[in-house]
Each structure stands twice: as C-alpha cells, then as structure tokens.
C-alpha cells in the first residue's frame, strides 16, 4: 500500500537525474526535458504556494493551464500538498467565452474547489466565472509565484495522505458530464497501473509518446500518470499542436524511439489522410511496439489504412492494438494481448441485428466484421447482462458490467449518481457488447451519447443549443450521430424544423445553428438540415425519437433526396 507522494519520493531517491518528461512545443522552440529532480522541485513550488494560500489537504484544486512545464508541475505539486487536482480545458478561440464561463461556474458549484491555478492571460476569464460566496478562496497565477524551491519531502503534507484517500478527480466532457467528477483513490490508481502495466509488460526502457489532452482519462492515465509513476520516459506533445500538425507524433516517435502510444479510432484515419509524405521523410516507426486504439468504437478498416500508410516507415503490423477503458475504472478494462493482432470476428449480420447474437455467417448470407477490444485485465471481471441484470450466454449481446479493485470511490459530491451506477456490486457501463472466447467486443451504447473523435457529447445538450437559435422552437430539433466511414468516427447531424418554408431563410438558420453549436460545444458541426414543419418524428407521448429520426435521415440520404 502506497501513495502518489511516497512513490514520487522513491523515484527521486532511486535516480533524480533520469528524464521523467520531455515536453515538445510548436514552432522552433526546443524540446524541454525535465528530470525527476527538476519535476519535483517545480512541483514543490506549487505545493508551497497552495500551503501559503491556506489550501488544506483533501480540498480540490482546479488547474486551467496550457500545455507547459507549469501544467505538469502544478499537477504534481497539488499531489505533494495532499490536495486533489482536476485539470479542466482552457478557453480556445473556437468556444464562446460566455459558454465557457457558465460551464466553469456550474463545475465550481458541484465540485467546490478551494483554489484554481491558471496563467496570467487567463486570470480575468477565471475571475469572471467566480461568484460571491462560492468555494474558491484563492486563484494562483503562475507569474506571481515564489519560484524558490527547497525540496524537503518531510514537510510536505501530501505524505500524510492514506492509500484509500481520494487522490484525483477526472471530469468527463459534455455539459451533462461536467456534473460528474470521478473520484479515484491512490490505491485504485496503483491497482490499475499494476494490472494495466502487467498487460503491456511495461518496462523502464519504454518510451510513451502522447498528444492526448490531460482532461481526458486516456491522456491523464495512459499518457501522464502511468509513465510518471512507473518511471517510464514520457514525451508530451500539445493536443492543439497535434491537431494542426499530426505528423509531429511520427517525428517524436522516431526521434525518441517511442514504444507506446494511445489513439482514439478517428486519429488512425486522421493520420492516414492528413499526413503528407514530405513531412515524415526518414521517419522510423519500428520502435513502436503498441499503438493502442481506445475510447471510441474500434474499426479494423482504420487499422488497415494506418498500416498501409505507415508500414514503409517501419510500422509493425502487430503493433496495432486495442483496449476498452473508462474513467470509472481509472482507465483500462481490457487490453488486446500484445505481440499479435487483435482478433477480428466475422459475424452473420442478420443474427447480429435481429437476434442480438454473435454467430459465424451462414454461407452466402451478408457478413460483418468486428474487432475485439481484448481480454479483461487480471484485476477486472467482466460479464454481459440482459435488461433484468442477469448474466447471459457467451455470444449474446447485452450490457457490459464490471467489477474490479480499481473502481472509482464515487462521483464527487454526487452520492445519488454513485448509488445508481452499481447494481449488486457490479458497475453497469452503459455499453453493449458480447464475449467470444474470452475476448470482449463492444458493439454499441445504451445511452444516446455520441462519440466524436474520442469526445463524448450528448444529443440533449446539442438540441438545447439549437433552441437558442432564433427561428427554432423548443422541442423541434433532433441531434444524433452517424458513423462516417472516411473519418473513422461519428459525425453529428442536427435537424431543426422551422416555420419559414423559404429556402433562403432556412439556409440562414442552418448557418446560424452551425455557428452557434460549434461555438458552444466540443464539436465542429457540419451536418445541419433545416426542414419544414412536421418532418421530425415523435413518439405517441410526444417525445422526440432519435433513432427513428436517424433512420429517416439516412433513408433520405440513400435516396438522394438530400438536396439541401
């Protein structure tokens, strides 16, 4: 039994001069290596700043910082002080400042942080989200901190924490998600790292290369906490830099001999389509022993395209792997066995759709392919249950339920949600799937949630945004996701009914919806369809039936009726 602070101290005593993290920046700026000693000295400044501000161990500290040395040090400094860090995205030019402020205020009211840490350019934005009488007692601004650092472990209050105490919070994306801070204990995180590290055969010679944002579980655990606490070199690229220049991932893997990376499914397509050969001349990807597809439905077509594009740069076929993960289990639930390709099952389409069962195709009948997400980690038990919660036979599709020693302590300040999430000691994931020969295949979702490029968005939130656009009436919009084969991820479609049947006016409203939703949500909206009254299908009780409207939309698309 140990804690994050104890582990940091032992890594420091073992080898203070080892490079723990290398930060990469955009433009011509040199890479910044940080040794364990530099990292902990930097972290110590933040721990002392929190101490001086009177922040107590066990209180929540929200970090709103760009990709920087300060972000890394503020995180571990909060840990060393014994407070609970949670990273929130900062405002980008895409998002409307009013929306950002409203979301931040909502988060503060649920999570009750005692302090926020930010950079000077962002201070006024943060202050405008604060309200009289809220929980925030201090806003620590990075340029006004005392940077002298006497590293004296014994006087840091993080060493008073116990393994079962909450160590960090993860917030999932989406307005609905903001209300759910997933609280994890030191022990749960270490149990995950032991099990997941074991499945990867993680070794101190590994090099993890990541561009993933740290406010998301895949980035935070696989691309930040696991390497640092396991003594594995981490090379960190800014997510904003990667999205504009995806070839940087390949260059970094080549430069640092990266061995492990995690990507959401869309990123395989994105890299395949958007990286130009002239940007990766001479790049060598042969050191990559696992590129793990996680956090969106996994597609064999995406692996195939990625392999074809990068095999001539040394990418090994069996480096392409899969995992199924969720923040409630810290991160990994399953992992495909490394060293061979993930299993791909060929299934009878009709049996899958109608009987909800995975069977081999009968001769001549249409087949479909699904890729496995791998086997449960050694500390995780997975079962598939029916609507009543009873376990069902291998091959039958049902809801994925799990049990492990690395589950969340609870949804922070939301005991009601915690109670609902577990049934008889099993956590119900809300995902549908089936098991074949011990491998988990994830086949869909119980909830209406849409996953766009690894980001979870809720159709209810998008519909509410649509109602804010002049000309659209409440209750007369529907949002859903359609799978886009080319992009390897879901794309959001919004349909809105308007009174005007003039095409020019309809087009103006469509543009206004596109702009408003893009400014106020995590996605960039492309598909908008403005329709005449009575297009949207309702159930007999007057509710909008998302799946029925999706079928109608797809049928019109197939029939080429989609002129506008």
């Amino acid at each position, binding site marked *: 039994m140990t804690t994050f602070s104890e582990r940091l101290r032992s890594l420091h005593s073992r080898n203070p001069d080892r490079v723990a993290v290398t930060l990469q920046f955009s433009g011509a700026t040199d890479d910044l290596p940080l040794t364990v000693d530099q990292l902990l000295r930097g972290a110590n400044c933040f721990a002392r700043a929190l101490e001086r501000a009177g922040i107590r161990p066990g209180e929540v500290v929200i970090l709103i910082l760009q990709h920087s040395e300060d972000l890394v040090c503020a995180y571990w400094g909060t840990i060393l002080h014994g407070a609970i860090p949670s990273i929130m995205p900062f405002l980008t*030019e*895409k998002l409307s400042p009013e929306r950002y402020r409203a979301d931040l205020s909502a988060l503060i009211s649920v999570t009750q942080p005692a302090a926020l840490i930010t950079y000077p350019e962002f201070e006024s934005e943060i202050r405008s989200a604060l309200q009289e009488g809220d929980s925030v007692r201090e806003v620590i601004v990075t340029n006004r901190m005392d940077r002298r650092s006497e590293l004296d472990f014994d006087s840091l209050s993080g060493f008073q924490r116990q393994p079962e105490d909450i160590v960090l919070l993860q917030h999932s994306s989406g307005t609905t998600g903001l209300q759910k801070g997933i609280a994890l204990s030191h022990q749960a995180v270490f149990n995950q790292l032991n099990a997941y590290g074991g499945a990867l055969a993680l070794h101190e010679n590994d090099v993890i290369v990541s561009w993933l944002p740290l406010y998301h579980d895949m980035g935070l655990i696989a691309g930040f906490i696991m390497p640092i606490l396991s003594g594995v070199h981490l090379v960190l690229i800014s997510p904003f830099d990667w*999205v*504009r*220049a995806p070839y940087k991932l390949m260059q970094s893997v080549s430069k640092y001999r990266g061995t492990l990376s995690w990507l959401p499914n869309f990123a395989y397509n994105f890299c395949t*389509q*958007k990286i*130009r050969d002239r940007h990766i001349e001479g790049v060598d990807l042969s050191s990559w022993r696992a590129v793990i597809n996680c956090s969106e439905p996994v597609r064999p077509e995406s692996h195939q395209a990625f392999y074809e594009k990068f095999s001539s740069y040394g990418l090994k076929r069996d480096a392409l792997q899969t995992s199924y993960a969720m923040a409630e289990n810290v991160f990994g639930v399953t992992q495909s066995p490394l060293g061979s390709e993930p299993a791909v099952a060929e299934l009878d389409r009709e049996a899958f759709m109608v009987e909800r069962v995975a069977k081999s195709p009968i001769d001549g009948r249409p087949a479909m392919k699904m890729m496995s997400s791998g086997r449960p980690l050694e500390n995780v038990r997975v079962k598939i249950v029916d609507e009543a919660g009873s376990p069902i036979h291998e091959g039958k599709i049902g809801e994925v339920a799990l049990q492990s020693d690395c589950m969340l302590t609870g949804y922070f300040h939301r005991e009601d949600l915690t109670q609902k999430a577990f049934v008889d000691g099993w956590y119900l994931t809300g995902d549908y799937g089936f098991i074949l020969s011990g491998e988990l295949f994830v086949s869909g979702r119980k909830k209406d949630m849409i996953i766009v490029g690894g980001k979870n968005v809720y159709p209810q939130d998008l519909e509410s945004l649509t109602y804010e656009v002049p000309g659209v009436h409440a209750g007369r919009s529907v949002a859903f996701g359609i799978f886009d084969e080319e992009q390897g991820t879901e794309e959001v479609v919004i349909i809105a009914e308007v009174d005007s049947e003039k095409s020019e006016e309809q*087009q103006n409203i*469509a*543009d206004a919806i*596109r*702009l408003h939703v*893009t*400014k106020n949500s995590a996605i*960039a909206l*492309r*598909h*908008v369809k403005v329709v005449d009254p009575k297009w949207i299908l309702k159930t007999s009780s007057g509710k909008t039936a998302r799946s029925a409207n999706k079928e109608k939309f797809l049928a019109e698309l197939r029939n080429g009726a989609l*002129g*506008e």
Partner: protein
Amino acid sequence: MTATIPSTLATFIASKILKQPSRIIAPEQPLISSGLIDSFSLMDLALYIEDTFGVRIEDTELNADTFDNLTQLASLIESRKK
C-alpha cells in the same frame, strides 16, 4: 479542367465541408469571418487544394489572415502556380 478555380473550390466546400451539395457559394461571400468554415475544416481544404491544383499549401497557412472568400483563395492558389 473546364471549371474555374473558385467554382471548383465552391463545390468542394459545399459538398464536403457544409454537407450541402447544392448550395451556391458566392465568390465574395465571407467564409471564415462568418464562421461558415471552422478551423478544423481548413486543413481539409489545404489538402484538397494541394491534390487538386498541384500547389504547395501548408496546413497552417490557410487562416483568416490569408483569405476570407473564394476570390482571395483562388488568387492565393494562382500565385503559387507561377
């Protein structure tokens, strides 16, 4: 190629970015300042221009400072062809 550069670009933007294939985009219509094209779509546009017109355009080159309508974008492409 029979279509002019602006009309070729207009077809691509309408069908691939706006998902409205029959939409008409006027040559002087603001595209970025109006929010019609978001920043994530600019990369797709840059790749399309390279492949279609055989000129070099880096991903980060297309932004609100370099063009805002089809006429400006077409002259940017023309200047690269020389």
